[in-house]
């Protein structure tokens, strides 16, 4: 495994990242305004922004720490169910949001513990089992989750004035969060914390020998990655207005993984592009759901066989390979 382009130039300054960041920020903020005339397209844009957030969190774990958890959607689901249950008890959404995010992060940290013992395929399998257990749990504990039926007509968060956060305003919040998540990920990757994660990805035994506390940093990566999952999950529930165990099942986890792998793991913009391309696609193919599954399956195979470094890897020769 060679060092990815971001890690190869630790001296890289913020200035080289400013232009793409500015372009992305302007586009992300402008998109809901431009599409505000068409509710359906604006909605697709909003959901895509949630996926950008998720892809960034997954990228921190898969791209920069070298772990491949397939339970990411399950963590988002934990946060979503917390928020829906607490708001149903009369909590304000804005009070429930941090609780849900904290629940997802704590769950993510605990469920990340196996990564300390298991490597590669065994950890991925373990996380797949955890994802399946989480989904079964969502179905089984129906007093908290309403079982297979799920919750519908989830109320929108209310603004300080009392008006609900809806429509274009909600999409602007989601866009802003997507931009912030990119900035946060950039900051992490450029910090000592990020460099330590990358060194764990490259060789965790060597990192340990060099005095890096691998246990601590792996768990911290899980905590931070799960914060991304949790924020996305908490905002997903009222935005869609409906959640069920299917909203956070293994296929969603695979799709989030695919956005990162397809875009190019271990790069800032690869997974963002992956999410921007793949998240709207599932809406376009919604009426052809059988074709959608086949297409996603073929794409997974194509990524594994033809482009292990993703789209971004096509531009940076010698980027991280599996």
């Amino acid at each position: 495994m060679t060092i990815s382009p971001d890690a190869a130039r630790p001296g890289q300054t913020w200035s080289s990242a400013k232009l793409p960041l500015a372009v992305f920020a302007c586009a992300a903020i402008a998109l809901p305004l431009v599409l505000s005339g068409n509710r359906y397209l604006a909605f697709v844009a909003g959901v895509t922004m949630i996926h950008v957030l998720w892809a960034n969190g997954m990228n921190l774990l898969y791209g920069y720490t070298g772990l491949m958890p397939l339970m990411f959607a399950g963590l988002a689901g934990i946060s979503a169910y917390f928020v829906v249950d607490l708001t149903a008890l009369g909590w304000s959404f804005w009070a429930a949001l941090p609780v849900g995010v904290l629940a997802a992060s704590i769950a993510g940290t605990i469920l990340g513990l196996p990564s300390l013992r298991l490597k590669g395929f065994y950890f991925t399998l373990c996380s797949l089992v955890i994802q399946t257990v989480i989904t079964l749990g969502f179905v089984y504990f129906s007093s908290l989750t309403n079982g297979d039926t799920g919750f519908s007509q989830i109320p929108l968060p209310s603004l300080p004035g009392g008006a609900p956060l809806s429509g274009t305003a909600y999409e602007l919040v989601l866009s802003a969060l997507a931009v912030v998540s990119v900035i946060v990920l950039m900051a992490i990757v450029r910090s000592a914390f990020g460099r330590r994660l990358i060194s764990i990805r490259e060789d965790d035994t060597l990192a340990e020998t060099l005095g890096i506390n691998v246990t601590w940093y792996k768990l911290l990566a899980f905590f931070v990655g799960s914060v991304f999952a949790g924020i996305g999950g908490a905002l997903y529930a009222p935005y869609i207005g409906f959640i069920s165990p299917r909203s956070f099942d293994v296929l969603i986890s695979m799709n989030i993984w695919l956005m990162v792998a397809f875009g190019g793991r271990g790069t800032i913009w690869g997974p963002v592009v992956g999410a921007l391309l793949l998240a709207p696609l599932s809406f376009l193919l919604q009426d052809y759901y059988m074709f959608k599954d086949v297409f996603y399956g073929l794409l997974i195979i194509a990524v594994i066989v033809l482009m292990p470094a993703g789209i971004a890897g096509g531009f940076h020769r010698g980027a991280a390979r599996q």
Partner: protein
Amino acid sequence: MPAGPRPAGILSAGILVLSNAHIILLLSTISTGLILGAIFALVAAGVTIVYGSIWMPNAANGQFFLLAALFGWTMTVSWGVHPAIAALLVIGLSVPLSYGLEYILVRRFYDVPNRNISYFVLSLGITQILTGIFASTYSRWSDQYQLPPLIKGVTFIGPFPIATNRLAVLAIAVVILAALFALLRFHKYGRALRAVFQNRDAAALRGVNVKAAYSLSFALGNAVIFAGGILFALAYSFDLSVAWTMSITAFAIMIIGGPGSVLGALVVGLVFGFTQAIVSNFASPTVAAFSYLGAMLLILLFKPSGLFAK
């Protein structure tokens, strides 16, 4: 029941009825446990043969299992083929399918280090493709699939009835398992496969054609999974959700038994079959799934080489 004048007589009759019901329940649990256990063992053996040799954790095993069952349903119900012939055709069909898949996809990774994770994701992709295909074709025709029985009628074990068809399925499953063991233990192909399981380079030095052994084990493993699928379809009615359950169960059996260990697959498969049969008598299938997954997590964390590791 008419009220008799002697309460003691009623009481003893009541106990008799109750214990008869208990014996029937016990027998049905044992037969279900044996059949499910044998089928679980077959599928897990197929998965573990492929993982042990080419290092491919085939998450699509449940979809292959379902594919065999659905092919069997099409042949028997739609085309009117006799179930026995259909079963042979389905198992035979797995061979060209396996070799085709091996040629297009699996072969590319034989020399890649850490290929098990690539294979794992690859097989998840195959899973998703087959899920989409099944959902768009078979799910429009029926929700629940039932094949005609292999042999009609009922056999009595003492006073207790059991469907002859299920006994036949059990016998065939046991014969296939025995043949698989004999093949791996005594035949020269089996010895070559085991040599590749243990040490690929040493086997190559001793004149084993490693690539041929790889393709053979892929085909053999899938044939065994297909056999499990068609036997399950002959014994029980099924729906499309059986695929994912089977995938997870086969993986749990493989991990607990020890990846690459056919004996482990057999023993743990039987244990899981009985667990399923017993648990389904008094709790929901979710509880059985929870217990498998929990057992698998514990083994993964504390003894990743499995209980029957070589």
